[in-house]
């Protein structure tokens, strides 16, 4: 191990490699998606081509590294669901990050190094996810500096402890309130509002809506089994307690399998006028569709992945969703606002991915990119881009999401670091029109109704740990 580090130092001193490498790859890679799946082979090739001495932008020699960072590249790993149930969603999120790095690399990369993504597919299977993690976290040439996306609560839960042991930073693509807890995931850098707080904000919003119409809110909570469902349910139950709302039906972790007849019957009979869901889009569509068909009228909303504009606004239930559904979220939608972040994002996609359809979730990948860049630059500034150094740097930064979502930092206690803002979106079936990015028109049908906002109950609440 020591020998390797010495060797790296020696090479860095002697060859001064970074600048030339980056300028060469700029020309080759800027416009092509090829760079997204850069390989070992290309990496080697690059090293050989950059062997010729060239002028350095900055001396790389001062930065300590261990795995995943060489003199001209930084590898970040993605443990993504590209063939499983969330593949369509995750593929676009990964695309968001890919495009982000193309832009960053074209502008010279981070600390003179090009960022390489190593994308592995978990298929949302825990076993495969763990295998992927072991590959990404390997203490060898194949290891990455940090994991910039790890799909799903289950897989994140499965690797949380290992990530701590390996001292590697992981950004989860999961918003369970667990990850912000230093006891559970000190190395898990949660992004955005967690399900629990999202539920609290969302139910406050719905309750206000009903109260304005002169009704007394009666809440039904539907959740699926697992961390996601439990966290969303915990938040909803907490909100009901704090707001003093009657819970007329609570299907805690009871939504699973294909037949939800009983849930629908009980929901319809419960007399609820607010429904909060912590479900998958398929489950939402089923329960929502059946309930509406049986004449059930209420204000619906749910944690972020309960709703999928493609399936719900593009399907048979579009009008009903338009009528009854409010979508909750913590990143701005595609035509949500004119923030700097959204303008950057749209500009980059228009140039680099003109044929892709517009999507709300590119922003999530883009924000992951912003986070990683901020953390890595801090680490570089600290002169320590070892895995441990990156973890340490993450505690020192505040990430500016440029209006795509609330800014965030991870230092301090749980209560200090959780993000309390979220958004409520109005679903508009008539506006829904998916077009290629380059057309400049089209819409995902989601518009910001309120936000970013913090409900009173969330603002006042002291979070002394995860909700579950």
């Amino acid at each position: 191990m020591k020998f390797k580090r010495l060797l790296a130092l020696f090479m860095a001193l002697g060859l001064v490699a970074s600048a030339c490498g980056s300028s060469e790859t700029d020309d080759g890679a800027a416009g092509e998606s090829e760079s997204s799946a850069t390989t070992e082979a290309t990496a080697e090739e690059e090293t050989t081509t950059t062997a010729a001495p060239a002028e350095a932008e900055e001396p790389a020699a001062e930065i300590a590294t261990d795995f995943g960072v060489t003199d001209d590249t930084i590898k970040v790993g993605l443990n993504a669901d590209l063939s499983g149930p969330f593949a369509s969603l995750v593929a676009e999120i990964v695309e968001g990050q890919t495009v982000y790095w193309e832009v960053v690399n074209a502008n010279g990369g981070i600390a003179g190094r090009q960022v390489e993504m190593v994308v592995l597919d978990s298929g949302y299977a825990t076993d495969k996810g763990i295998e992927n993690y072991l590959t990404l976290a390997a203490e060898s040439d194949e290891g990455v500096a940090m994991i910039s996306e790890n799909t799903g609560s289950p897989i994140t839960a499965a690797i949380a402890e290992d990530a701590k042991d390996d001292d590697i930073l992981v950004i989860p693509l999961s918003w369970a309130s667990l990850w912000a807890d230093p006891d559970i995931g000190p190395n898990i850098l949660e992004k955005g509002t967690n399900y629990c707080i999202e539920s609290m904000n969302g139910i406050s919003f719905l309750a206000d809506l009903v109260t304005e119409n002169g009704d007394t809110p009666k809440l039904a909570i539907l959740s699926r089994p697992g961390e996601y469902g439990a966290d969303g349910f915990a938040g909803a139950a907490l909100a009901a307690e704090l707001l003093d709302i009657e819970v007329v039906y609570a299907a805690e972790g009871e939504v699973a399998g294909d037949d939800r007849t009983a849930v629908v019957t009980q929901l319809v009979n419960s007399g609820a006028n607010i429904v909060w869901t912590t479900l998958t889009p398929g489950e939402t569509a089923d329960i929502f569709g059946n309930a509406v068909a049986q004449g059930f009228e209420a204000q619906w909303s749910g944690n972020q992945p309960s709703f999928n504009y493609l399936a719900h606004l593009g399907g048979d239930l579009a009008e009903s969703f338009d009528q009854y559904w409010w979508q909750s979220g913590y990143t701005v939608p595609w035509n949500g606002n004119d923030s700097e972040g959204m303008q950057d994002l749209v500009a980059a996609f228009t140039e680099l991915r003109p044929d892709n359809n517009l999507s709300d979730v590119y922003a999530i990948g883009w924000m992951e990119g912003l986070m990683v860049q901020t953390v890595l630059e801090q680490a570089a500034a600290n002169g320590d881009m070892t895995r441990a150094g990156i973890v340490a740097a993450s505690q020192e930064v505040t990430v500016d999401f440029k209006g795509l979502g609330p800014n965030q930092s991870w230092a301090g206690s749980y209560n200090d670091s959780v993000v309390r803002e979220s958004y409520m979106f109005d679903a508009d079936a008539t506006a829904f029109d998916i077009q290629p990015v380059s057309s400049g028109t089209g819409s995902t049908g989601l518009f910001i109704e309120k936000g970013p906002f913090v409900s009173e109950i969330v603002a006042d609440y002291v979070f002394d740990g995860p909700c579950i």
Partner: protein
Amino acid sequence: MSFGRPHLRTSYEQDSAIFPTYFQKGAAGLFLIFIVLMVLGNGAAGWIPTWLFGQTWLNPLTLVLPFAIAALGFNILTGVTGQVSLGHAFFMGVGAYSAVTLGGKGDGGVKACVPFADNIGLLDKAGECGLGLPIWIWLPLAGVFAALVGILVSPAAVKVRGLYLAIVTVGLVFIGLHIARMLPEYAGDYESGRKWPKLDIRIWKEEVPFIDMNEDGKWLGLIYLTEEQKQFFFLFAILLVMMAFAKNLVRTRTGRALQAIRDRDVAAEVMGVPEQHYKRVGFAISSFYAGIGGALWASYQGRVSPVDFSLLLSVEFVAILLIGGAGTIAGTMMGTLFVELLPKAVEKLTNWLSGNLDSGGVIGDLANIMLTSGPGDFGPVSTSPTAPGWPMSVFLWNPVIYGVLIVIFLIFEPHGLFGIWVKIRNYWKGWPFSY
């Protein structure tokens, strides 16, 4: 004895040995030495896995070992006894959850081990049941419990034949998945599962294990090994023992009875082989292997979720059996290696090809045909892992390749890799007089 005439066997004992000739004994020994050298990272023996699977090849290779054990069990049931089961994943699950219940860490004490503890008011909140016992208890018992469950379901399983059994066992997998959902106190969260005991060997529940498998260091004060190497050798040793058991079983009375049932069930009965009894034995032994395999797999992974024990896992074993060659132990091993490492190899190969896209020459051309790097290109495999629609990413192609291989092997080489191996061997035996 008779060095000059390797085919002359002087006793029945020699004739029915696992490796009857000195040549075979020597070859097996050399193969073992090769594996040890390879895992120890010896350059000469290690370049093939490095080239195929990259630097971290030891992890995927170690992962093959528990699957190989479970596959041996599947072979006993389906290859040897001829009972087509799609329920192997279920029995792996039974083994794995027995292991975690006995060896895992619980948070609700013994009370949590009562089913529905929180529903009947024993506990306020659902807890996880784990007794924290050492591996020498949980590993064998994982197998035993799986075998017992096998016997428990056998009344339904031994009565039905052929495809009916296949369907019944499909049902078993779905029911098993649901039971895991009903009993989170054993199974943990339905999607993220729970933590399994590590492979460390403890005498009892002491803090510092007797043999530590999860830290680099000297093993029993003898040889310096990394954590990965330790785990590999440990699992490999278990696999060898299980292979020997399987081989012995097949060459003795019970094994013959099982094969007889496979080949002609009615004739077997008339020869005095009670069909239902031996089907039950086959079921139990197969489940035992599945249980051990499942327990070791989960333990090596550290964490698996109930959903991992799905029908797809069962189908994997069918593929292993068919691709390797049914009924033989060597075939089972070949099949497991092939099926478990194939996706990884395909991924690496695609990466390697995409690295050579612009290199010209044969490889470059091949890469251009196979891959699509941007719009306007017509290769079936997309280099971008994220592009939806056609062309598909390599991750989506992997199951396609795997399914197509099952079809191709069945149509063109029903005896699987083992059959191919036998053909090659016979060719060389007859060489230069190949006919």
